[in-house]
């Protein structure tokens, strides 16, 4: 295992300390692994988080116009309720707190428990669950769809709404609206190694890729041979578009890298994606290309679309300044 780390069991706290050192406007809470804003304003608080290994998610999205606090679990495993409660406390200015949860059973349970305990302390807490990964069939019976890169759009939309001074219900409504209009689909070309484990959890052949793999290496929909950028764009978009009808609408587009895929390839992919969308009469209002929601050093990508109306456009364009996303 070739990683720039020290003790594999300390990667999360050391990485968050490194982030805090690089960003003086952020505060790091030891042991509870919470990154929060130093200067708080009176507004609805936004908290997200989950397992680590998805950097810059989520700590990289803490700052003006996005999150108030991000709570980190160990690599790929959910943070415990006490950590989340700390994130809620850091974010609460009396206007209540919204939790943005990715749909994994561990996160649902831990955030849910934290919500109840915070409510016992009379903090008003609401939550939304992001489930944008169309690789998994939606289902109310099983855990259902995973939350992946689309979560970043939810941070942005809810964050802008909160910054505008909206109340908790309004912020939650904006987040729900974003979630309803977001779909994502990914593809992996290599596995990744959990620092504490030391060997890959799965292996892809020389010439093999996996369509629809999750950001923790959860099995996808199909293993296949390496594809060209235009084929990848076709396959991922097809799955998204058959799940949600974006035709004739304006969208925000995210071409996301999983960690080890160079920006050059993401731009080549974006070129293909935008060609296809144009051919389908889907107008790209704003494009984001880069590593926004990763899976350690996995090679691969995901594509996310969010259908926009005037409100979502305004919230998407609103200024934000965080370590991983700045909009002027």
């Amino acid at each position: 295992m070739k990683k720039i780390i020290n003790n594999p069991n300390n990667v999360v706290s050391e990485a968050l300390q490194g982030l805090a050192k690089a960003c003086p406007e952020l505060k790091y809470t030891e042991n509870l692994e919470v990154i929060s804003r130093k200067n708080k304003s009176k507004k609805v608080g936004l908290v997200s988080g989950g397992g680590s290994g998805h950097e810059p998610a989520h700590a990289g999205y803490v700052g003006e116009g996005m999150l108030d606090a991000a709570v980190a679990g160990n690599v790929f495993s959910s943070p415990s309720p006490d950590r989340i409660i700390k994130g809620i406390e850091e974010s609460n200015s009396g206007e209540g707190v919204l939790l943005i949860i990715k749909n994994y059973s561990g996160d649902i349970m831990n955030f849910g428990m934290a919500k109840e305990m915070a409510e016992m302390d009379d903090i008003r807490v609401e939550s939304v669950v992001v489930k944008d990964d169309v690789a998994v069939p939606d289902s109310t019976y099983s855990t259902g769809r995973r939350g992946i890169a689309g979560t970043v759009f939810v941070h942005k939309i809810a964050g802008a709404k909160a910054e505008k001074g909206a109340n908790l219900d309004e912020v939650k409504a904006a987040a729900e609206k974003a979630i309803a209009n977001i779909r994502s689909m990914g593809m992996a070309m290599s596995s990744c190694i959990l620092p504490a484990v030391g060997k890959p959890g799965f292996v892809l052949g020389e010439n093999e890729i996996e369509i629809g793999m999750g950001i923790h290496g959860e099995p996808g929909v199909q293993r296949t041979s390496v594809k060209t950028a235009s084929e990848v764009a076709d396959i991922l978009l097809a799955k998204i578009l058959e799940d949600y009808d974006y035709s004739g609408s304006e969208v925000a587009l995210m071409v996301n890298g999983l960690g080890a895929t160079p920006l050059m390839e993401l731009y080549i992919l974006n070129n293909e994606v935008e060609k296809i969308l144009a051919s389908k009469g889907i107008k790209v209002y704003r494009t984001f290309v880069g590593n926004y929601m990763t899976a350690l050093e996995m090679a691969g990508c995901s594509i996310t679309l969010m259908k926009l109306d005037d409100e979502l456009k305004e919230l998407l364009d609103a200024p934000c300044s965080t370590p991983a996303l700045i909009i002027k």
Partner: protein
Amino acid sequence: MGFQLSSKDYTEYIKLAAAKIHENGDYVTALDSATGDGDHWTNINSGFEKLVEAIPELETLSLFEEFKKIGIIMMSVIGGSSGVLYGSAYMGAAKVLKDKESIENQDMCNVLEAMLNSIMARGNAQPGFKTMLDSLHPAVECYKDCIAKGLSEKETVALVKKAAIDGAQSTANMEAVRGRACYQANKGVGNLDPGAITMAYQIEVLMDYIATKL
């Protein structure tokens, strides 16, 4: 009259359970690696290690406070899915022990049932989903049954223990619905559920410990 467990007795049980879990590291890790992410044993083992460290404090507490404290520790130290589930379980159980000096036969049954209900509520899962519930649920059903039938405490704890173990074994042919195993193509069929196994360990040790008190 039957057994009466004090706060101190319960910490004795904690010691034994911790030892049982500690012994079975490689086996449980292998199970979670097959269908999950391989961390269940590290998670739960570190939780029990922490509980053992906390015994000096725990044994001084009322049962109500003791169970709440155990819940907090498990929640924060175990982490993952099982941490919060055990946390919820112990918080739920604490409620039924409010103002109690000791745990007697009926109380023990109520405690386990409260744990079952709390875990089902938190995890929004059912027996048959290939989880720790599939060891706990049959154990509770069996316990209620024994009390209804008026069986002796000695017979009861033996049957409850067997129900928990058999329940855990029954997860082998179940399909996972919750947790990571559900993303597997075969839904984990053929593999035992690690959380059910560790749940069975705890019930087994608890029942054996009670037996020594009879």
